[in-house]
């Protein structure tokens, strides 16, 4: 039996469920196919539960540092089981929230794996193997991605952890090797370091957080090392030897090969799109390096089939998926003035200690493009609020086009910068120039004043530096 809808969304993550909600708001009859859990990896096994874990780590760091604030706290310790339980409870609460939203929006949630079985037809295989068919003139693919598995680093759930294992530890490893110093890697590294593990962080690129501005990378590395992590860049894992006691990893870096002995390994070396089993073979859907090729309106090469989120080109971020979902659905519905997503205006946040947040071009990339740039920067060490809060580590860096005054990029490192970056995102989206930013009143005393000062410095007239 085939059920007819206006739109079928395959995948219930931050791309898919937002697409379903928006389509329903616009009057479409929507079916959402989800194979495991609404909210996707982001909500269940990614962004959200890790933020809960990192918050626990932050509280622990703060309490340990209580004496510096004149607060006496004795007998500080942590309860790993409670930390993990809290993280899982947060994910569960949000998952039920998404379910409620979809129910109130009259979205039909179909549990199972969806695949394109014929034009305008999606076959769903339930967990019990039962098959059903859905039909709609348009299908949005939003099946997301999974961690890339490097040969020799296959998770075994005991010594070599997947991200899920790393999020639900039963005991704290005394030592851990984190492979990959992208956002996910440094977040796990920060969490385990705060809890007390010896952490070795290995990155193949020549710096940590390789997508970030070089200056920020250098500050991040210094901060990680100050917190006691061992950081090896330009280094890859040659081999792992597992035994009953732990793991011996052979690292190959600029100084040659070396061995480290650890209890656990976490691999965080990028992602792969979930394109398999979607029935893409024989359709017009094209892949490029494993990701679906889409046009400005998220349309694939197959008429009526769209793809959003991690399935498509980078950046692979939840908010990018959600935004693409809205653009895709609104374009389908014929909403006026839909604008395509500008990948250069998508902020990215890393919740390590210290936090890193950025948007737009790094100084290096802007110069590579031949743009004459004006750089502004301001250290939190010169911010009154940061000093009062004892959060005076880090800086705000801004990159402007010297000719037009366009804000090309902003790069922040320090406490709560993931909450600050949005100010620059608004400015970029509204196409404010350095003149509007300089003219904007920033409240005192806040960390955000450092954003203002960074802009003023780019203009050559800083007030407090």
């Amino acid at each position: 039996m085939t059920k007819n809808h206006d739109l079928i969304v395959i995948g219930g993550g931050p791309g898919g469920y937002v697409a379903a909600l928006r389509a329903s708001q616009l009057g479409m009859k929507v079916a959402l196919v989800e194979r495991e859990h609404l909210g996707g990896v982001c909500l269940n096994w990614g962004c959200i539960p890790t933020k809960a874990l990192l918050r626990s780590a932050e509280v622990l760091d703060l309490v340990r540092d209580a004496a510096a604030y004149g607060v006496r706290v004795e007998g500080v310790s942590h309860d790993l089981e409670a930390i993990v339980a809290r993280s899982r409870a947060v994910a569960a609460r949000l998952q039920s929230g998404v379910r409620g939203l979809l129910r109130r929006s009259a979205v039909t949630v179909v549990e199972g794996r969806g695949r394109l079985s014929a034009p305008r037809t999606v076959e769903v295989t339930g967990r019990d193997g039962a098959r059903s068919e859905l039909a709609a003139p348009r299908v949005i693919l939003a099946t997301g991605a999974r961690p890339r598995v490097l040969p020799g680093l296959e998770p075994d759930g005991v010594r070599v952890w997947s991200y899920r294992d790393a999020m639900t530890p039963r005991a704290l490893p005394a030592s851990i090797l984190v492979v990959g110093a992208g956002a996910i890697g440094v977040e796990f590294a920060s969490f385990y370091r705060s809890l007390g593990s010896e952490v070795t962080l290995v990155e193949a690129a020549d710096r940590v957080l390789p997508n970030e501005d070089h200056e920020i990378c250098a500050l991040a590395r210094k901060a990680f090392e100050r917190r006691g992590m061992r950081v090896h860049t330009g280094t890859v894992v040659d081999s792992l030897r597992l035994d009953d006691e732990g793991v011996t990893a052979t690292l190959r870096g600029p100084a040659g090969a070396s061995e480290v002995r650890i209890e656990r390994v976490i691999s965080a070396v990028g992602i792969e799109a979930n394109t398999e089993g979607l029935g893409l073979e024989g359709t017009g859907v094209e892949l490029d390096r494993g990701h679906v090729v889409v046009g400005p309106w998220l349309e694939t090469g197959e008429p009526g089939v769209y793809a959003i989120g991690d399935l498509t080109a980078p950046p692979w971020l939840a908010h990018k998926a959600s935004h693409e979902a809205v653009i895709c659905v609104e374009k389908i519905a014929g909403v006026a003035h839909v604008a395509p997503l500008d990948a250069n205006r998508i902020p990215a946040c890393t919740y390590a200690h210290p936090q890193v947040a950025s948007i737009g071009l790094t100084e290096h990339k802007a110069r590579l493009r031949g743009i004459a740039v004006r750089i502004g920067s301001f250290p939190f060490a010169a911010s009154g609020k940061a000093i009062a809060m004892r959060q005076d580590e880090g800086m705000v860096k801004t990159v402007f086009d010297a000719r037009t005054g366009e804000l090309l990029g902003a790069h922040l490192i320090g406490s709560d910068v993931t909450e600050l970056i949005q100010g620059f995102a608004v400015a970029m989206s509204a196409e404010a120039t350095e003149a509007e930013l300089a003219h904007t009143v920033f409240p005192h005393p806040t960390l955000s004043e450092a954003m203002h000062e960074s802009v003023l410095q780019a203009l050559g007239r800083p007030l407090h530096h």
Partner: protein
Amino acid sequence: MPIEILMPSTGGDMTEGNIARWAVKPGDAIRKDAVLLEIETDKALVDVPAPGDGVLATILAPDGAQRVKAGAVIGLIAVAGEDPGALRAADSATPASKGLAPPPAVAAVAAVAAPAANRIAASPLARRVAAMGRIDLAAIRGSGPNGRIVKVDVEQAAKHAPAPAAVTAAATAATSGTVIGERAAGSSVPHTAMRRSIAQRLTQSKQSIPHFYLTIDCDVGALLVLRAALEAQAGFKPSLNDFLVKAVALALKEVPAINASWSDDAVQRHAGVDVSVAVATPGGLVTPIVRDADAKSLRTIGAEIRALAERARAGPLKAHEIQGGSFTISNLGMYGIREFSAIVNPPQSCILAVGASEQRAVVRDGALAVATLTTCTLSADHRLVDGVLGAEFMGALRRLVEAPLSLLA
């Protein structure tokens, strides 16, 4: 949502026009397809029909508004259930007049600070980039939220825009009365839509069409004798030009490859023989069309040309009266011009420049003689007309002119 009244585009290359006259006023009930206003395009007056039923809420481009971009919102119609007064109020707060040209001074440089430019929804960055590139924001359609102009729109426009330096200089001089050197500058006359269109079309034609020229002398002695006979016997005195229109039409029938237009993909052969006749008016040259001139009598041709010319001198003609000719005749003989070469009127392939008919000394059979000759020069688009083809046409034309009874057939 109110219905937007958009500045129409009446033809392929029309990008802007002037508002001639609104036939309705705010508050009037509007029926779909009723004539709302007349616009003045390159050479014609065009009626603009109502896009829907309702009440005219507001006029954004009043009578006489100049250089309104095609596609610009020029008025709003309130539909059932909407309050036209509220739309008016809302509109004066945030005018949708993004397609309307600001006064020349504002269009020039200081877009960031200019009050009129501020009425256009554009991002600060778009304004700055536009000011730097001297791009007129009023000419840009925004792609941002609610049609706001963003940087990428300005960059797109910059790619297509011609260098605006001359316009800017003229605009500055016009408003500031700049004194150049010792003497005051002469007055500057703002362009009419028609002048602008003539300038643009002719520049484009001369720059992009490879012209070549063929000149031939036609003996019009027999034709003048025939004309005298017609006047004496039928009380009908066609002009020399009427004869030439007919002769050209018949020559086009004989050499149909001339009756064609160049397009990027193919040569378009015209089914009918429509001859445009250049007519001088106070505003400039217009070219009303005698359609199917090959099938019309001299009397009909003459009557049509005189009626069209008279109306053209009184005011703009209707679009259909000037668009679509396949060949143009331009005659300056009455001004004593012996011969000249004209610029092809695209998309036509040829234009015939006709000089004065005058008695000249000719050599016939080895002896001097007197003949009445008219020198005709064909300007041809070499992309589709080769020299021999043009020569064939001119040969046919001369034969027809010199055997004028064939023009009465």
